[in-house]
């Protein structure tokens, strides 16, 4: 009888210790994540979005490589390339009374008829309405980012050319903390999804470089029902 009892106890212990759910054996979520990601294989998705992006690896940090694409900027800038209008430097323009095209240039040599709009549509409006609301006068003016002699590119603090597509390199000169978070994914936005290839919005995709602060506005919805119910209580 006693032996029988022992056998029962041993059997019960054996069966109750057996865990059927393999996820439980890790003890905690973090341990499971750590263990299961050891043999991770990336999941690739087809890019169905209309975002045009560079798959060029963005890696300024040699320690950790950051493989993600960023959307192209030049196709979104009105009337790029800029030297279509900015044929001469700003200083020269000022000396000539502000006209882009000097009387001599009015011959329009080498310009075909379909190019007219490239200047004339923007001739009056242009982008004179831009006012700089970014840092203060001591830190920034137009020339901090633009070089009047090389309008097609942005200009770094040491006057090196930076392509408009890589404008994050301009921003990161001052905003190094944000840049570090952005390249790792804690700041900014994923564009195509969570799978590979990763595409991330650039700084200028959300922040207007001339007026970068996110604006106050009204919420996009009002929950009248919830207010009604709360007032009833």
């Amino acid at each position, binding site marked *: 009888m006693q032996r029988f009892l022992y056998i029962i106890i041993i059997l019960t212990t054996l069966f*109750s210790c057996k865990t059927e759910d393999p*996820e439980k054996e890790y003890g905690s979520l973090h341990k499971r994540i750590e263990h299961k990601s050891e043999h991770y294989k990336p999941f690739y998705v087809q890019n169905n979005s209309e975002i045009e992006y560079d798959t060029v690896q963005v890696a300024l940090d040699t320690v950790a490589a950051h493989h993600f694409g960023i959307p192209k900027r030049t196709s979104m800038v009105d009337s790029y390339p800029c030297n279509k209008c900015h044929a001469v430097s700003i200083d020269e323009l000022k000396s000539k009374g502000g006209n882009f095209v000097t009387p001599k240039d009015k011959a329009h040599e080498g310009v075909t008829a379909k190019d007219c709009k490239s200047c004339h549509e923007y001739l009056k409006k242009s982008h004179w309405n831009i006012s700089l609301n970014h840092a203060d006068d001591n830190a920034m003016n137009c020339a901090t980012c633009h070089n009047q002699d090389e309008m097609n590119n942005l200009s770094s603090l040491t006057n090196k050319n930076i392509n408009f597509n890589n404008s994050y390199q301009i921003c990161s000169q001052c905003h190094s903390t944000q840049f570090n978070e952005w390249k790792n994914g*804690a*700041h900014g936005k994923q564009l195509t999804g969570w799978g590979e290839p990763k595409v991330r919005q650039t700084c200028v995709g959300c922040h207007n470089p001339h007026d970068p602060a996110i604006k106050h506005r009204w919420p996009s919805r009002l929950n009248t029902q919830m207010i009604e119910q709360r007032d009833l209580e």
Partner: protein
Amino acid sequence: MGNNIKKWFSIGSKRVVNESCDSDKPCSCKSEKTNDGFDQVLNAQTDRRNAIQKLTAGLLIGAGAVSSSCSVSKSDEAKEQSDLDWEEYFKGNYKLMTDEEKQNTVDRLTRSYELRTGKKINMSAAGPIDDVLYGYAFNISKCQGYMDCINACVEENNQDRESQMQYIRIHEIEKGSGIEFKNGDDTYYHEVPAANHFYIGTQCFHCDNPPCVEVCPVQATWKEKDGIVVIDYDWCIGCRYCMAACPYDGRRFNWKTPEVPEEEVNKNQHYLGNRLRKQGVMEKCTFCIQRSRNGKNPACVEACPTGARVFGNLLDPNSDIRWIIENKKVFRLKEELGTEPKFWYYMD
């Protein structure tokens, strides 16, 4: 040993097995039945009272279906509709279905919708992707309370427009008063961000140890392999135990039949996700299962204008979400409960 015992609901077999286990230890015996479809309902052992109840209910439905399918005056479409209704009525729990059965029920629902409205929808039964465990991070320094996420969620998930039942809530809380939701306001309507306030969003956190799943008496809700907690709307009996069990106010109940204007219905659907619901069933955030299982981000992540919402695969060591969890100061709500939510909050 539990496989031979048959009950009306799959939970029945679990209860019987539990009794034979050591009550001090968490019971781990195999509890799910393998029957499905007609078998799950018809080939089950039951007592006389239940059998008579079920038979009566079945007969009532069946009589209606048979009368319309055999009727000479009914159109072919009406007959097909009642055939579909008949098969849908007797289908099993989605959780226990084979891939083929899942596809069949999705096809039936798609066809049924087409017969009713003349419009085609695209419903998926896609299963979890291997090596994927979804996680979510929310930056409380970045959220400005615009509520764009809520709008996107309502549209994406075909939520009822009139009752304003929403999966996401954005709470406006005064800085310095801690994260006390009772001091928060989620019906604010003024220019945001308000001075001296911060915004924190809540929704279903897809706990790794979900209490809502534990309490469901019919196993109509469960955790998928990729970590998403889902509901079979056709198996849910609307008892709202899960709603009471959820410590995060993550679940919603359909008090009325949800109404979505036909032109606003999102036709890209998933059986466990945003397909049109009925009255008296639970629903909640599914991390937009119809999108996330396609590699896309949930609608709220895509809509957020501030980048406060981050979604990703926790098993990908190079994912954004992993970097945030490992490098930022993160916290989760009510961690002491041991629910292990897969939803982290962080700050700049």
